[in-house]
């Protein structure tokens, strides 16, 4: 769908001006398009994360649908409760979502998230992934990529990034997708598709973060695009267990000349300043291998 059509179809804004997000925030950009896709009859559960800040200080709010904040590890379970409560109340046309950061998803909330998926709770879980604990000042999370500087990995993270989308797919839930705030139409379409599916749906959104990733605030969209164009971040869907590459990622697979080197992505951000040239070379090789495997998987069932 084109941006013009989206604005015709969903003119209403649910993320209001005057919110207290940082300049250039990828997460609020993503939430804006997610809520356009979901519409007014949406309830958001937001565990501790940047979302608890950019919604605004009491008694003001920047989100115009019900927005319930809960403790860090409690998002998916609280959402399960709201889903159950609405069921008991006989309300069937409300979409419940959990809007959580990567720490709330990959680390402290992973048990609750896994439990909700195992129960196939009827909600959509969104992880907005800025790849560290940005709300508390950039500490490493399980979702921080190798090489990235954080305040708790001053010489770069040694370990790799936890692959939450595949972990969630292994729960055999009906819909898993990845997206990026720099591809709002991709995110909009995936959210609309998720909305009409029943059961647990999981969408993992890469959301670049200027203060945490150390780049200028006007570059948020560009950095996200570099992540996808370099193959560092893949956009795909796993629908009923079948893997499908999404258009922006398929494009770089089918047209290698459109691929950018991972070096361009790494060098555009201050957080990777401690990464050595030989490490960038190894990372490029890893991505090349990954893309080859992904090409084989496209259109096929992911699990036996």
């Amino acid at each position, binding site marked *: 769908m084109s941006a013009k059509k989206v604005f015709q179809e969903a003119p209403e804004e649910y993320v209001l001006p005057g919110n207290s997000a940082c300049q250039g925030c990828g997460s609020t950009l993503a939430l804006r398009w997610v809520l356009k896709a979901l519409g*007014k*009859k*949406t*309830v958001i*559960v937001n565990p501790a994360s940047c979302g*608890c*800040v950019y*919604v*605004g*200080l*009491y*008694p*003001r*709010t920047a*989100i*115009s*649908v*019900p*927005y*319930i*904040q*809960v*403790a860090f*590890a*409690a998002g*998916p*379970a*609280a*959402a*399960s*409760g*709201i*889903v*159950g*409560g*609405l*069921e*008991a*109340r006989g309300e069937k046309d*409300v979409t419940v979502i959990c809007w959580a950061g990567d720490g709330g998803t990959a680390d402290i909330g992973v*048990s*609750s998230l*896994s*439990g909700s998926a*195992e*129960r196939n709770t009827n909600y959509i879980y969104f992880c907005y992934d800025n790849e560290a604990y940005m709300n508390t000042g950039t500490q490493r999370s399980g979702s921080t990529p190798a090489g990235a500087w954080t305040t708790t990995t001053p010489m770069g993270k040694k370990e790799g990034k936890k692959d939450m989308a595949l972990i969630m797919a292994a729960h055999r839930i009906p819909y898993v997708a990845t997206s990026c705030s720099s591809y709002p139409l991709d995110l909009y379409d995936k959210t609309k598709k998720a909305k009409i599916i029943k059961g647990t749906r999981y969408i993992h959104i890469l959301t670049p973060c200027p203060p945490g990733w150390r780049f200028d605030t006007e570059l948020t969209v560009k950095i996200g695009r570099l992540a996808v164009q370099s193959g560092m971040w893949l956009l795909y869907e796993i629908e009923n267990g079948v893997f499908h590459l999404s258009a922006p990622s398929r494009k770089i697979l089918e047209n290698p000349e459109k691929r950018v080197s991972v070096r361009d992505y790494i060098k555009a951000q201050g957080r990777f300043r401690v990464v050595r040239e030989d490490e960038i070379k190894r990372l490029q090789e890893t991505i090349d291998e990954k893309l080859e495997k992904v090409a084989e998987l496209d259109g096929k069932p992911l699990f036996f």
Partner: protein
Amino acid sequence: METLILTGNHAVAYAVKMARVQFISCYPITPQTGIVEKLSDFILNGELEAVFVPVESEHSAMAACIGASLTGVRTFTATCSHGLAYMHEMVHWASATRLPIIMAVVNRTIGPPWNIWAEHGDSISQRDTGWIQLYTSNHQEAFDTVLQAYKVAEDPDVLLPVMVCLEGFVLSHTVQPVVIPNQEDVDAFIPHEPWKHIIIDVDNPITHGNLQMPEDWFYEFRFLMHRAMEAAKEKIVRCSKDFEKTFGRNHGHLVEEYKCDGADVILLSMGSLADQAKVAVDVLRDEGYKAGALKLRAFRPFPEEELRRVAKKTKCILVIDRNLSPGKGGAVASELKAALYGFKGMPMVLECVAGLGGRDVTLEEEVNLMKQAFKVVEEGGEPSGIIWLGLK
């Protein structure tokens, strides 16, 4: 109306069913599991129409109850011991969101070493969370208190969650006759109206939990919680009296006196030991001792005024605490002494810590303990620290 022979756990489950609870979320832990097992049966056979969410942890159980309660439906969970400790963060969250969630706590010791038997330390350690805590002494009281808890919790002047506490195995796994009232009477006693202060409604959206700066409203919110706790004292009494009018029973309101008038020594305790204390008093009275017993039913809100009223009648209150705050002592004794301090004509307080880890406190031990207290009173002695009962 009928009388059934029930375990303490099943008595709680019957009360939950009769309260027409709409949402239950739970995680198994001994000795609580009998409650949710029975509730699962009720849901399966159609006796209870409720959404049941079997979560992966107690933290999630309380989070789920919070979510459901935010939609205005009646919720229930049960836990104890390590489960309650694991849930702790959300226990705070529930009360500060002012949600009338009811939780049965089947009191069990917290390890290590592993110990599944009765002790009040698990719920006592949740003292400062802003939950009303009601302790029950027998199966009928556990049943009745669950019904009363919904009435108190959902009162617009209260809107606080309630823990209904019963000791593991001593009550949970033993059987007693329990009078089950008519459903119509229960429906009339606790009609359900969704609370209005916070409710999820897509046509009237709210946000909840937004950040507060120190100069904003946080202090006032906590003041309001405290005021609601204070208001709950009167509501618990009124609820208990209304309950008696409808069902013909009461278990004391905030505290229950037994032969306290003219007693020189009063034994104060909570839970099953408080029922046994009545028997101890009868034994002592037969031997010519002026003994009385006092059951503390509400630990939060703490009924300071009632305790002072009873304290004025006696020379000595002997407290048995089935909990221990290492480095201080038992919680009930500590709080009692604080409640009496500075008021005229207050008696001596002797404190005993006993029954930890489920160790039995026998009738004979209670009687002998009381006799020790009488001796201190007669000899004009004073308290000399914690009395440890049968310490090896």
